């Protein structure tokens, strides 16, 4: 049995998409999706935020985006302060939206951590996620960002 399906994955991507749409009236578009393996792009951008799930699913959902994209976002929001700290806040906020959607979709029994945000180097995701995690490359305006889904359905009795 396959662990998760595209509908489950779509829940996370839609969360990101809705977040951007509410603030900017511009939808996020899925560019492509692939499995994170050695010889494919690492999908890691400047800033990454993630939440940890336990319960029905266990694992992490990552949102990774370049500086420029989050700066643009703050600009659209009318935020004057665009320090790194603020950018990490924004990334965390997006991860929070993901966790909200996840809870709605998978039910209240799912435990979801508060987001952890950090600046990340180019190959970082490949070093932390399980092999063959799902990468969904999204586009907002001309920026690229990624949602990486590294979760497994918990073993059932």
């Amino acid at each position, binding site marked *: 049995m396959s662990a*998760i399906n595209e509908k489950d994955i779509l829940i996370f991507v839609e969360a990101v998409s809705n977040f951007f749409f509410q603030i900017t009236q511009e939808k996020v578009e899925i560019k492509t999706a*692939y*499995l994170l*393996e050695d*010889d494919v792009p690492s999908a890691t951008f400047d800033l990454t935020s993630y939440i940890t799930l336990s319960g029905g699913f266990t694992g992490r959902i990552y949102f990774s985006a370049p500086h420029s994209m989050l700066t643009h976002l703050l600009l659209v929001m009318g935020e004057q302060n665009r320090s790194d700290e603020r950018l990490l806040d924004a990334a965390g906020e997006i991860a929070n939206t993901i966790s909200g959607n996840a809870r709605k979709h998978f039910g209240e029994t799912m435990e979801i951590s508060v987001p952890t945000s950090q600046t990340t180097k180019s190959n970082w995701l490949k070093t932390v996620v399980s092999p*063959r995690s799902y990468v969904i490359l999204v586009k907002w305006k001309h920026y690229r960002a990624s949602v990486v889904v590294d979760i497994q359905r918990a073993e059932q009795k």
Partner: protein
Amino acid sequence: MNDDRSIFFKYRKIVFAVVLFMVADAVVIGVNFYNTYKSDESAVSINLSGRQRMLSQRMTKALLMTENSLARSRNVATKANLKELNLAVKLFDTTLKGFRDGGMVTGGDGNPVFLTQVETDESRKAVEETYEIWDYYLGLLQPLLSKNQEFSEEELEGMLEFVKNNPDTLTAALAFAQMNNLKILQYMNDLTTDLEHVANKRASTLRIVLLAGIFFALVNFAYTVVVSIRDLILGDHLLAQSRKETAEILATVREGLFLLDKDKKIGTQFSSSLPDILRRDIQPGADFMPHLEAIAPRSVYEAAVDYIELLLGDRVKESLVTSLNPLTDVPVLVTDTRGDTQTRYLSFFFNRVITAEQISHLLVTVQDVTDKAVLAQQVEQAKNQAKAEIETLLRLANSDFDTLQRFITNVGESLAQINAALSESHEEARERMRILNQIMRLVHGIKGEAAVLGIDMLESYAHDCEKEMIVMRDDENFGGDQMLRVVVLLEGFYQQHSSLAQVVSRLGSALGKAHSAEREDAAEDTPRKQPFVDHITALAERIAADHGKQVKVSCQLEKMFSLPNTVTRELQDISVQLVRNALAHGIEAPDKRNAHNKPLIGRLSLRCESLGHGRHSFTVRDDGCGIVPERLRKLFVEKGFMTLEEASALSDKEIATRLFLPGVSTAETPDQDSGHGIGLDVVLEKVKRMGGHMLVRSSPDKFTEFSIQFSTTP
């Protein structure tokens, strides 16, 4: 069951009251009638006893008048007075007798009436005491009385003579009469009084009886009214309660419940879950069939129409047709609240409702059995999968181990290529389409190899992936979201691949070949002829069997296995595809071959030859129906690849070339071996990669030959 009895039982109290009322009425009427009759009798008695008083006076008066007229010698008057005396005595006597014994007497109007015997002691006493006087009195009067009461002139003359001659007789009677007249009068008066008293008593009894009757009737009426009203109220209450219960049942029951009338209309009441289960807006009284038609597959719907009509008719036996209910576990397409269509499984059960020995309705129960059906499917799937896995395992055990390992490596590489293709960013839809086509070719390649090795598990998975991707390819809105699906399919592929790799590695250790993976790189791994010939023959025969065809394969492939390994592998892949094509499109079914006077068993040959100067040819030839441009034109138009004008504008050669474009297929229905329009384009790509070119020769209903010419000296 018995309605009559139950109705009687239901209204038994009222029926009882009504019967009682009628009986009481009859009694009262009877009493009344009896009393009226008695009153008539009393009236006669009273009347006649009154007359007795008058008669005693008349007798005395007649005696006096007789004496008077006799004294004056008025003979005519004397005779008249004697007659009057006679009449009075006679009437008095019979009446008195009547009172004593009962009997017919002359009534007041001269007609005979029946006089009843007196009943009370007083009356009897009065009558008896009268007799004490009357017996003597009558004795005194006797000489004066007529013998025959005819009162003829002679008799009257005789009587006159007697009185004239015996005046003492008259004197004695008159004296007695004057002395006793008052007494008689008194007795008769007593009698009258007593009779009146009896009559009054009877009248008052009657009144009491009537009053009692009326009272009883009133009570009975009141009882009836109370009982009926109470029963009605109770009935209404029960009815309301049962309605409420029905409503509650219909509101809470999980199944869809409704009645279907003879016109196949849904009844006014149905369970509230019905619209949910059917996922349709159901109105009371709505036609059921259009709802069913909208959700059920066509064939099921048509069978259901027959079935429902049979049940509504009275020809078939219900219990002997329920096994034919076509509406069990029906897959229906429904649209959920989010607008997604999904397949659910519903079961409908129909039961006749019989009213007055007629089929009035069908009671329909609808259940959503999706969970059950899905579970059954999963069990089935799991079974099949387990079976496929075991079959795979058995085949693997029989396979050439090195071939297997190479296959696993190849699949791994193909999957990596697919993932790499996916990870490329693609801006345009056309770009995306190119990538999808590329992925499909890779998947198709895996399918082909899996087929050759008889690894059903992977072959069918690849086939399923292919099917889904074809839908995507034909979807105009193919975009990023579908890419998500592709990547999920890819992940599934990886899982299949890794479990297969595990099996092979275990098998390897079992066979003591644990290190052959390393050996593969060191020692030049050479494709070997015999396993390949075996595989390709088996594949051809299997495909032929699947299509109801027969085939004999002949191979001359020694040359092929002397070529560089890379070339040999490409040729192996190509031959799988061409063999598939030949069997799916070329070689005909036996009856068709028979019609063309061809041997029933098709021939398929694979040949690899040296053409000299490092050039080689690889040929796959079948003796099937051939590639016929005219047929292709027709087919392409039918399948909507091109319009009639476009098809006619193309030359025969151009038409045939179309076979090599992605997405073009000539098979009627897609199956594992054909129909997806992936195949010849893959072959052509490989040929190009080898730096070769391909020749196609064909003759209608005779043969088709694909020949690849290539050079091994770069």
